[in-house]
């Protein structure tokens, strides 16, 4: 067969396959692990509120004990654009530092490895982290350039490297932003774990994760790091063409919990997205709860804070019925 004939054939086959995937109704998501997961929704209408007290309320509802633990806060610091809200707000990061100190953590650090930009501290400066978080540079680690250790239990990868700061933490707190995502549908506490992967080895962007497949990589990272807690900044989220070029979407909530799958599923419901159609959540349904009857909702109800996020055309099918 000549190359001239081969290329159109590949195109037709790929188009047919893509179309059939779109038409098929996905099978039911498995029930997940035994028991239920607590997820707390706390009202926070603006960043000027007392966020420490709000978060404290949420942590207590979830029964989290961090006394004597080494806590690593992982914000979502991606790029900066003053006209929109790409990153976890600096006030949320500052409040979380204070919160975990108050709760008796032995150590509270902040770590992030942005996926696109090389100058992480400059990005943190733009996002007002340096001016808002007390002694920021003393507690911050650029995970893209940290020392690394080999791990052999990351998905199907025979070997993978993670920053030592991440591996040394007793608890990783995913301080995510509530956003839509042009490849994954939504980016919340689980996708935020992409920033744990070191750019010094995997590059800017961390293209290795794209080749694993974004949904699978998100699920694998969540499976690898189970010592986690999520605080999703939905005070002002991002809708439309997220995670960078979308528009601000005020929701006025913080969503918190130990089961990242359940937290993300709850966030999706708040955003008007059907979590059972989000591929990475389907892939991670063995480690956490997606079904609403397996999530113990505390604080505000989903219905009381629900606000449909605008979705790009590719993801209109994710809209919650």
């Amino acid at each position, binding site marked *: 067969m000549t*190359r001239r004939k*081969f*290329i159109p054939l*590949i*195109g037709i086959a*790929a*188009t047919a396959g*893509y179309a059939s995937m779109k038409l098929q109704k996905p099978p039911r998501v498995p029930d997940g692990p035994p028991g239920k997961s607590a997820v707390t929704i706390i009202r926070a209408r603006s960043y000027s509120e007392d966020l420490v007290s709000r978060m404290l309320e949420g942590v207590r509802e979830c029964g989290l004990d961090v006394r004597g633990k080494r806590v690593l806060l992982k914000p979502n610091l991606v790029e900066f654009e003053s006209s929109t809200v790409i990153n976890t707000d600096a006030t949320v990061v500052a409040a979380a530092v204070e919160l975990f100190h108050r709760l008796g953590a032995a150590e509270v650090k902040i770590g992030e490895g942005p996926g*696109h*930009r*090389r*100058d992480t501290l*400059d990005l943190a*400066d*733009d996002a007002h982290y340096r001016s808002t978080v007390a002694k920021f540079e003393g507690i911050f680690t*650029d995970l893209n*350039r*940290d*020392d*690394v*250790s*080999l791990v052999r239990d990351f998905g199907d990868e025979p*070997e993978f*490297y993670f920053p030592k700061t991440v591996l040394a933490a007793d608890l990783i707190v995913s301080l995510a932003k509530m956003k839509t995502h*042009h*490849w994954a549908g939504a980016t919340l506490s689980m996708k935020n774990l992409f920033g744990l992967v070191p750019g*010094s*080895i*995997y*590059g*800017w*962007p961390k*293209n*290795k994760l*794209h*080749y694993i497949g974004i949904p699978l990589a998100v699920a694998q990272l969540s499976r690898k790091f189970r010592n986690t807690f999520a605080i999703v900044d939905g005070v002002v989220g991002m809708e439309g*063409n997220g995670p*960078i*070029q979308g528009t601000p979407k005020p929701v006025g909530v913080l969503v918190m919990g130990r089961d990242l799958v359940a937290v993300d599923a709850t966030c999706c419901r708040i955003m008007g997205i059907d979590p059972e159609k989000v591929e990475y959540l389907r892939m991670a349904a063995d480690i956490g709860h997606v079904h609403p009857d397996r999530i113990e909702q505390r604080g505000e109800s989903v219905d009381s804070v629900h606000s449909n996020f605008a979705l*790009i055309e*590719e993801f209109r099918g994710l809209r919650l019925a």
Partner: protein
Amino acid sequence: VGELYLDSRLDFLRTAQNPDGGWGYFPGKQSWLEPTTYAMLALHGRPESQSAVEKAWTLVRSWQTPEGSFRPSGNVDGGTWVTAHMVTLASVRGVYDDKVRRSVDWILSVVGAEHSLTMRAAAFFGLVKTKMDFSHGGWPWRQGNAAWIEPTAHTLVALKKVAASYQSSDLDHRVREGEALIFSRRCSDGGWNCGNPNNLNVDLPSYPETTALALMGLQGRSSQELAGPLEVARRYRKDTKSSLAKAWLTIALRCHGDNPEPPADAARKSEDCMLAAVEALGHPNGNHGLLRVGGRA
């Protein structure tokens, strides 16, 4: 001109060298090839640093893999984009031996995965959401992944530097392809980001640091082709707050014949070894000329 600026950075590098001979991204951290390369270039040719540079060279040479690539750090298996840095370092040092030849062989064997026939076909039929031209072969961060601006730019510098010794039509072809890839991924604002100028039909903005690196890789192209990007780089250098971006932009502009205003004569403020080295390289009396290449391969 501003000797405090330069001396404080070079002194810092001398004191921040690890006992194994390499440099970490920060003092006391594990040695990596990337900051070690920049530190070696910054200290190159300075008599008081000769033994430090030799020790570093011995260390990083030991990181070559059997297939010719270089590991990014001593405890990391598998070669990556940093292999280009090793070829550049070897060229600067006038070393051209079997190790260097095998590195160049490896570099020429690697191409961005999006350049595969399947991906080009998928792009042709509109199954790819990005507006990227997959017809040009550039270089990825890691073998098996897609090509991006930064690894392609570093590799172009390396290949242009080693071209006179390696001499092959394949090398010439790959240089032309790499340059074409960089041009094809230029953002609508005139600069470059990490390598994706448009997503879902929305133009994405360029970044100062990748604009600088793209211009490094495009050394030797005509001034007419580069007039626009150089203007963008000059504007970025004036406006950016990022010390790293400013330092890379300074080097890039100097390599293209500009003589940008020297920095204020301020002592180093950061504990970042790579930043100190890149800033030292860009100083008027720094070694930025080591990254200059003489024209097309």
